[in-house]
């Protein structure tokens, strides 16, 4: 088992380095840089001297291999540098958004679980009945709907609905106040995107719950339980659900990791100051250092979760280790 873990860990390294190289190259292939945008972005006159100074300060005038060398050294010493746009340390910039993204991820995962578990179980228990079809259609609609469109509809609905009921249009707050400062304000802003994304992500979990339940319902011990005359509700709750949980928990874990990477499009619609919005901003502003750090964060979360899932499965099923 330990040698398997070590082997899997070693495999992570090339992935991380590969992603680091890829993002470095892709960013530099985009014409223009942060200095040109910052000082010439309003269309008027931009002092060439100022642009030169900016490039010098940010090291953009260095040959590309030196820039890469600096970047790699920083990468291995965990010194991610400062944002090229704001001059704040990259870790500070990310730290500010991390809390919001974490909170949304948790809330959306909760929403997703609350939707997925009951629906998946009902769907499996009532397999191939109209109830099953309805649940499946409902959850597939969740993935089919573009999340930003759902966001637009939610805001539209809130504005129109609040005007109709309270005579005064209301929309969720657009600035971020941490949960511990003002829970009500915080939640009134974040519950909507959490609902939108939670619904979307519940689709996969619903399907997983359904098929895991179906699989378990066909297992011998469930049949035995049925033969013993236990009523269906007890069978489902006590016996089947417990055993069906593992793949469901796995899929929820993976989804959580995806959510942590930031909700690029949904954060735009709701003006959330999360990692996804930071991502779009840093990319469109050619903020190399910040984009690189964000990409590495997303990649690291992704490979780490995959690693944990692999380890968990290897632990549960020893055959995998020798494959």
């Amino acid at each position: 088992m330990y040698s398997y873990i070590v082997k899997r860990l070693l495999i992570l390294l090339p992935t991380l380095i590969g992603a680091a190289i890829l993002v470095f190259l892709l960013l530099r292939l985009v014409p223009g840089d942060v200095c040109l945008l910052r000082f010439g972005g309003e269309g008027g006159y931009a002092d060439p001297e100022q642009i030169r100074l900016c490039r010098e300060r940010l090291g953009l005038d260095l040959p590309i291999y030196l820039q890469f060398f600096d970047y790699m050294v920083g990468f291995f010493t965990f010194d991610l540098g400062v944002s090229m746009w704001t001059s704040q340390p990259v870790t500070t910039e990310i730290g500010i958004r991390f809390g919001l993204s974490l909170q949304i991820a948790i809330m959306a995962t909760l929403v997703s679980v609350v939707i997925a578990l009951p629906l998946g179980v009902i769907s499996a228990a009532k397999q191939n009945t109209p109830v099953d079809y309805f649940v499946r259609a409902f959850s597939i609609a969740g993935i089919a709907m573009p999340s930003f469109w759902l966001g637009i509809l939610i805001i539209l609905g809130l504005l129109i609905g609040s005007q109709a009921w309270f005579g005064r249009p209301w929309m969720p707050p657009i600035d971020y106040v941490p949960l511990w400062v003002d829970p009500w304000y915080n939640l009134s802003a974040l519950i909507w995107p959490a609902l939108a994304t939670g619904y979307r992500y519940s689709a996969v979990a619903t399907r997983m719950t359904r098929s895991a339940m179906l699989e378990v319902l066909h297992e011998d011990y469930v049949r035995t339980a049925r033969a013993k005359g236990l009523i269906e509700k007890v069978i489902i709750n006590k016996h089947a659900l417990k055993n069906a949980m593992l793949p469901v928990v796995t899929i929820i874990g993976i989804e959580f990791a995806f959510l942590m990477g930031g909700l690029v499009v949904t954060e735009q619609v709701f003006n959330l100051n999360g990692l996804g919005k930071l991502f779009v901003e840093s990319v469109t502003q050619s903020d190399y250092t910040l984009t690189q750090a964000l990409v590495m964060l997303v990649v690291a979360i992704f490979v780490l979760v995959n690693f944990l899932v692999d380890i968990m499965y290897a632990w549960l099923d020893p055959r995998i280790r020798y494959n």
Partner: protein
Amino acid sequence: MATPDISIESDELPARKTILQRTGRLARKQPLGFAGGIVVLAMIIMAIFAPWLAPFDPEQANFADMLVPPGAASNMGDGLFLLGTDQFGRDLFSRIIYGARTALTVGFTAAIIGSFAGLALGVASAYFGGYFDLVLQRIIDVFMAFPLIIMALAIVAIFGTGTDKVIIAITIPFIPRCARVVRSSALAVREMPYVDAARSIGYGNARIIFRHIAPNVVAPFLIMLTAFLGEAILLEASLSYLGLGVQEPTPAWGLMLQGGAEEYAESAPWVPIFPGLAITIAVFGFNLFGDAVRDALDPRLRSR
């Protein structure tokens, strides 16, 4: 020499028959999948016959008819706007019909290229194994973990915007995902006795791959392919919404949700609602269809 060939052929023949039978059963046993198939068919018809179905030129701005509500007549007296118009006075109905063209072009091209490239890489990776497999899998790891938006932005910035560039941006992440799934299926097949037999008779790599391994990974491959179709349409919409996809004045559903559609959502809700509905119905149809294909092809799920 002829004997193993026949035995393999005879192995496959009944399989083909059951696929046909299953398709027949699909409509009866899979009402959802059948509904999905109808949506897909309707979309294909919309895309092909767009010029005949669309009452207006989808790109012709007409400022006398800006933001006309659904069902109202044109102020220019040249017809009825079934779904209303956008801020340029363009008929939404016509734009949605033509948008099906963009969506299907992007969806099919990206899904087909992505899954075939993934098929080739996955089979090759499994078949050759060793360092080739190891290195290829690490590259695939990188691309699977890499955020799509960076890729899309770089592609747009390097090659410019346009439908073909969106296709590239969407195809790239599909390749490693399909390759990964195909590889694991192919790995299982590789150890099968008939592949050993073919190898022992001295068949070349290409022949073994194409005749013996590839057909056996068809099921997971088709499942990926159909799943990609809906996903590609969604990704295209998201990229266009972020301004990184298809550009004005080309009719594309994601693009129709951006900019004015949001700003005027309150007074002209039809502008964001109909294109979003078109995306949802299309992806919904593709997903139902894909699920049915999966149920039909995945032996593990077939019995259910």
